[in-house]
């Protein structure tokens, strides 16, 4: 133990003096080294949500009435009832900082971590998605980070046997030193299978199972994910860009997907046998987090023998064991009479398991190390953490940004000009064909994938007999949110909602990964507060509750923060996946109907970004009531079998949507545009979709559309080998495909 006269290294562990003094006050004495380590990780921004909590409350306070929610915020992941006795749990989480320092392992363990979150709820993980954002596509460091991230996701997800059904890939200079790697996992269970993350029942045993504990990831939550990168990391070359961060590399965990696969099957067999009384996955802050959270949520006391933790490095002491973020570990609470059965199941799956403690009624979390007490704390004091009301202020430059109206930008006015802009958009890295990435992921495993990339949303069959399924989409748009974080976040929510709806599914619930700069910057904090308010209000208006999520702060290099980038995941239920809608135009003579209203809205648009490198003005105006009507129409039309395709309109507007649908289905289209062709092609007005109505179903669709109160106009039909805009231009599909498909292979080999 440290002598009283020596200052303890709280600052090096990421704690402020005030936080340190609060620990001393709580304990009535100086903390031990192990206690200091435990508090430092538990009170890190990453684990405690200390800067975001006061805002996140709105998700519960403003939550719409929903009968679908079986477990909400505060659990490892939210749980949603999808009918027929099935429940679904889903969540998205960031692994941004580790993926910059060590792209392959950083991204791989991001997948592993979110899969364990879903497993901990009692569900079988059934699919993953990834939302990825990088610096400029041609930047040398993107050539280091992107291939590493993709190979990490491919390595881990494929080996784990989870289909990767969608996600995003985008590029912007603001992510150059702070790539965003957000991983989503969804799992399915029967209603009765829900597991609790609490240690109840004095005398019950605490079992740590899975991988051994090593020195990897020590301080991952506190040192890596809860601080900004230094300015030196901002400018760099492919070889040495992360050299300034080399010291942080040991904070990145190393993944073993094979062990995780065994852990998944082992857990599911343990659940089926009723052998688990409480369960927690080990993620950020490892044993420290699992023990304190289980104890705090349960009877309240726990005794742990830290020397019983199986180690892969025998030199580790209590602080390192508590802080280690070694992967592929779980902690279970087991009745004493079931311990032998529990260990037998673990042995069948070659999963190592060790009884490391037991639940007590003392209200204290006590840990010993070879007989000596090294931790003795009230677990709630570590689990709850501090709460900050950080100062926030609308940045002074915001007015100037909004005043910089994109309507003043030069725009094409003739056929060749419009044609060139369309080709430039679909050939820009953010809108180009993503096969270079998605071909590295297994989308087929488990045999239930009905829709996957490049569809708007992923769709997974849950029940082979009834056709019940779930649809998922993730969306983010840093440009919209930079211009107006409140409206931008609602636009992002609306897009994910719409992407679920165009598959024919009914949106049910929302998860979010809130990627922002430093909360210590009042401007960033304002962006965060506005985004959360926008999301909470948007979810209330759409009638879809937030079931959980994750906050990633400190995505900034020096004083330069990323665009505020909330990534929103929406889950929907599909009554019959056999009635799903694809984006592909593949039924000749289907008539094309543009749904929704188009205004001249170019603020934050892909056109302004790609053609002018411009970001300014106001983002498009969200209309959430119109989104609800559109979703209702799409679900009804899909169920009635009236449509052969449906595609959401978002980045790049109608022009990009038509191009993607032609390429996906291998068939051209011919359209006549009402009014100004530039606005019709490139505006990003929200609440719109283009649908292909089956020949013969036109009248029925018009009547259904009017019933749902959705404006629409027939703009042409499917057929031919060109994307043809009457009176302006035509592009052969082969030329379209060449512009779209060659971009990423040209950049990344």
């Amino acid at each position, binding site marked *: 133990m440290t002598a009283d006269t020596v200052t303890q290294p709280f600052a090096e562990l990421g704690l402020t003096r005030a936080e340190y003094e609060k620990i001393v006050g709580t304990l009535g004495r100086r903390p031990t080294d192990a206690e200091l380590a435990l508090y430092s990780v538990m009170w890190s921004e990453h684990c405690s949500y200390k800067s975001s909590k006061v805002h996140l409350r709105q998700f519960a306070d403003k939550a719409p009435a929903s009968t679908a929610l079986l477990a909400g915020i505060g659990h490892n992941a939210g749980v949603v009832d999808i009918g027929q006795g099935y429940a679904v749990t889903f969540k998205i989480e960031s692994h941004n900082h580790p993926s910059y320092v060590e792209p392959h392992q950083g991204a791989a363990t991001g997948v592993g971590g979110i899969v364990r979150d879903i497993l901990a709820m009692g569900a079988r993980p059934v699919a993953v998605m990834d939302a990825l954002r990088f610096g400029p596509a041609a930047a040398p460091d993107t050539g280091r980070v992107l291939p590493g991230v993709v*190979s990490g996701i*491919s*390595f881990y997800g*494929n*080996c*784990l*046997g989870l289909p990767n059904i969608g996600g995003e890939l985008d590029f912007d200079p603001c992510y150059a030193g702070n790539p965003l790697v957000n991983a989503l996992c969804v799992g399915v269970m029967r209603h009765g299978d829900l597991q609790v993350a609490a240690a109840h029942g004095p005398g019950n045993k605490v079992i740590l199972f899975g991988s051994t504990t090593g020195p990897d990831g020590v301080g991952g939550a506190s040192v890596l994910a809860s601080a900004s990168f230094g300015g030196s990391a901002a400018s760099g070359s492919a070889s040495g860009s992360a050299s300034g961060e080399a010291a942080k590399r040991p904070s990145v965990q190393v993944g*073993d*997907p*094979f*062990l995780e*696969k*065994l852990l998944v099957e082992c857990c599911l067999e343990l659940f089926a046998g009723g052998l688990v009384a409480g369960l927690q996955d080990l993620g950020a802050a490892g044993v420290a987090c699992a023990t304190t959270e289980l104890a705090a949520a349960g009877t309240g006391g726990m005794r742990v023998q830290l020397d019983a933790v199986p180690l892969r490095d025998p030199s580790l002491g209590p602080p390192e064991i508590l802080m280690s973020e070694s992967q592929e570990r779980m902690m279970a609470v087991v009745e004493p009479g079931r311990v032998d059965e529990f260990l037998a199941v673990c042995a069948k*799956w*070659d999963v190592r398991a060790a009884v490391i403690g037991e639940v007590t009624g003392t209200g204290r979390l006590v840990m010993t190390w070879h007989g000596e007490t090294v931790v003795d704390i009230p677990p709630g004091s570590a689990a709850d953490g501090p709460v900050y009301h950080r100062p926030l202020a609308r940045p002074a430059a915001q007015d100037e940004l909004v005043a910089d109206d994109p309507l003043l930008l030069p725009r094409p006015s003739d056929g060749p000009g419009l044609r060139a802009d369309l080709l430039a958009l679909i050939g820009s890295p953010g809108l180009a064909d993503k096969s270079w990435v*998605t*071909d*590295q*992921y*297994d*989308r*087929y*495993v*488990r*045999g*239930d*994938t*009905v829709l996957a990339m490049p569809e708007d949303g992923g769709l997974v*069959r849950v029940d*082979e007999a009834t056709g019940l399924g779930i649809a998922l989409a993730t969306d983010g748009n840093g440009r919209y949110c930079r211009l107006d974080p409140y409206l931008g976040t609602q636009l992002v929510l609306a897009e994910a909602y719409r992407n679920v709806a165009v598959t024919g599914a009914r949106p049910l619930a929302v998860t979010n990964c809130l990627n922002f700069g430093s909360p210590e910057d009042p401007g960033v904090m304002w962006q965060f507060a506005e985004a959360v308010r926008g999301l909470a209000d948007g979810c209330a208006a759409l009638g879809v509750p937030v079931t959980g999520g994750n906050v990633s702060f400190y995505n900034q290099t020096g004083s330069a923060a990323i665009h505020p980038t909330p990534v929103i995941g929406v889950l929907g239920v599909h009554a019959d*996946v*056999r009635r799903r809608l694809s984006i592909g135009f593949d039924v000749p003579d289907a008539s094309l109907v543009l749904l929704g209203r188009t205004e001249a809205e170019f603020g934050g648009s892909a056109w302004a970004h790609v053609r002018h490198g411009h970001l300014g003005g106001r983002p498009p105006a969200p209309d959430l009531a119109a989104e609800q009507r559109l979703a209702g129409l799409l679900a009804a039309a899909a169920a009635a079998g009236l449509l052969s395709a449906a595609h959401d309109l978002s980045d790049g507007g109608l022009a990009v949507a038509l191009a993607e649908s032609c390429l996906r289905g291998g068939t051209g289209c011919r359209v006549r545009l009402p009014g100004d062709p530039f606005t019709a092609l490139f505006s990003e007005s929200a609440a719109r979709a283009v649908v292909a109505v089956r020949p013969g179903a036109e009248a029925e669709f018009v009547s259904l559309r009017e019933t749902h109160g959705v404006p629409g106009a027939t703009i042409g039909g499917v057929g031919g080998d060109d994307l043809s805009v009457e009176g302006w231009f035509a592009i052969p599909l082969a030329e379209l495909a060449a512009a779209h498909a060659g971009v990423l292979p040209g950049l990344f080999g």
Partner: protein
Amino acid sequence: MRRIGVIGFPGSLDDRDAARAVRLAGAEPVALWHADRELRGVDAVILPGGFSYGDYLRCGAIARFAPVMSELVAAARTGLPVLGICNGFQILCEAHLLPGALTRNSGLRFVTRDLRLRVENARTAWTSAYAAGQEIVVPLKSGEGCYAADAGTLADLEARGQVVIRYTGPNPNGSVSDIAGVCNAEGNVVGLMPHPEHAVDPLTGPSADGLGFFTSVLAGVLG
């Protein structure tokens, strides 16, 4: 009803898909466990895709020594129909039930792609439902699917018609002579890298072309 075993190794992933394909073909799938020394009297066996033992050491190199394999090798030598898909193909090569080896894709990346394949030999236990020369669309998804064999072995394979399946388009992984699947001299043991069990229903795959592998074994050898 005919019973077809699907072996589960630690790290097997496409076992439930193989079982579904067996069911759709009209047989009963039977789960076999790597640690058991018995085949439970099944009429044929499938080694499914996945990453048995995490692909550690070398794909299929550890699974080859699983207790169930000694029974399987003996049964295969006396005519039991055996199909190895992807990792299962790798295991069959490691177990010397099939010639050649699978190595890292020439592009060094995992490849998931729907591919047009040609059935070169429609006389094996697992391809009799097809016509020789028939083209089928089936997904490939693997990181180590580059088929390799020495020149003498290759010449023998071609001469004896042991090349069962070939890639028809651009070669996705560098396999020699565009080989996607091979069989033993007797034609009861077949291995291929593409996944016919993921092409049994157009709802969840690119086609239903793969179902023929599973109906072949029922109609042919077992019928």
